[in-house]
């Protein structure tokens, strides 16, 4: 049994919320540079150059990359030999979000109730997903999620007979309908299989995968590549103003499913695909 204090968790979450909103991970920066080369539209190229400059200004002048600094999505892999000391783990995470969004000059975008809509003024609560795993470590991923792209995400409950062609059409439909609303060039996360909620969670988690890392499943690796090419032939382009770079990457996760179903979720993220990972 290894003891981790809630203070350590709060401090990490706070730092990760701030860091994620001021600089993208290296894999995102790399795909950006490649995108500028690939874009055929002059206006598209101009926009991609401005987005690169935007990243530089954000880092140097300490201005968040985007004013929508997101709702804090937190993936927690909790080793089953970890003992959390000093209070509730959820409270510790939310305290970290509270401190990070205040100290980092980040926007408070969370309302306490979906209908009453009163801003909580500290960006809490976070959306926390826990998984119990082997070991004595606490693995944390913080992914502040903007809602321009979140609003364009979809779940499709396909039939087994729809097969892989149905999956491809579902992904293309979501991207086509998202168009300029999702701040392209986008990163597309998809979850295939599981249940209604499992496929949505996989789609979200897929967005946090390092863009250089490939799926371990050969046919999924091919599918990711094929979908990236198909999406980039849609013509949506940077800012939705026409072009050949509509998506920067397609990341897909799968899970076993029921004999009667083929759930597919498509979680779209804008080019500000923020995710940061730390192990305590």
């Amino acid at each position, binding site marked *: 049994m290894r003891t981790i204090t809630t203070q350590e968790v709060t401090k990490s979450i706070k730092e990760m919320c701030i860091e994620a909103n001021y600089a993208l991970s290296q894999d995102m920066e790399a795909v950006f540079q490649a995108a500028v080369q690939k874009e*055929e*539209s002059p*206006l598209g190229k101009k*926009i991609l150059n*401005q*987005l690169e*400059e*935007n*990243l530089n*200004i*954000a880092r140097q*002048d*300490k*201005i*968040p*990359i*985007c*004013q*929508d*600094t997101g709702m804090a999505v937190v993936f927690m892999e909790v080793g089953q030999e970890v003992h959390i000391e000093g209070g509730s783990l959820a409270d510790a995470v939310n305290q970290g979000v509270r401190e990070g969004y205040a100290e980092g*000059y*980040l*926007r*408070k*975008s969370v309302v306490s109730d979906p209908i009453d*809509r009163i*801003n909580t*003024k500290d960006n809490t609560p976070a959306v926390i997903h826990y998984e119990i795993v082997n070991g004595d470590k606490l693995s944390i991923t913080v992914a502040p999620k*903007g809602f*321009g792209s979140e*609003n364009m995400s979809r779940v499709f409950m396909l039939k087994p007979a729809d097969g892989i062609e149905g999956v491809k059409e579902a992904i293309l439909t979501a991207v086509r309908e998202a*168009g*300029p*609303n999702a*701040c392209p060039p986008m990163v597309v996360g998809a979850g295939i299989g599981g249940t209604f909620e499992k496929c949505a969670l996989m789609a979200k988690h897929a967005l946090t995968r390092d863009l250089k890392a490939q799926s371990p499943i050969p046919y999924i690796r091919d599918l990711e590549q094929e979908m990236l090419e*198909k999406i980039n*032939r*849609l*013509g*949506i*382009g940077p*800012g*939705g*103003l*026409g*072009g*050949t770079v509509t998506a920067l990457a397609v990341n897909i996760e799968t899970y076993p499913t029921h004999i009667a179903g083929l759930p597919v979720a498509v979680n779209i993220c*804008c*080019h*500000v695909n923020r995710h940061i990972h730390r192990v305590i």
Partner: protein
Amino acid sequence: MERHIHAPVDQEKVRQLKAGDYIYISGIIYTARDAAHKRMQETLDKGEELPFSLKGNVIYYMGPSPAREGRPIGSAGPTTASRMDRYTPTLLDLGLGAMIGKGKRSQAVIDAIVKNKAVYFAAIGGAGAILSKCIISSEIIAYEDLGTEAIRRLEVKNFPAVVVIDSEGNNLYETAVLQYNKN
């Protein structure tokens, strides 16, 4: 074509703008997003005056991140315009001259743009840091309790945007995508 325009906008100038023009806006604009639009509609429903005159004015769909000390504003990029579609035709009929946002508009909004000879600009979504550099001053003029969603009066200089829907109803989102569609 690159153009410079002054805000509030002059209707004759607006008529000259064509979908696809790259423009730089200088002058005074006002921010309003979801909650402020809802409140403006409620104000109109009660027969009361809006917190600012719409005549020729420009609304920027934006809710900034907090400003650091010594700066006018934090990150300040556009939010998705379609969420304001329900309220927009009324505001256009009352004289709203232009809107800055990102993303598609409903047919009702496009019709109201044509009817009132207004214009819809897109700013670059997710470029809030760079766009904040074009904002010289920011002052909350109404609905302060809404936090980031309060109405702000912004002074902007050379704020870059693209004409997406012009006063004749031409829509760059429709035409530009077709140009590069290869499927």
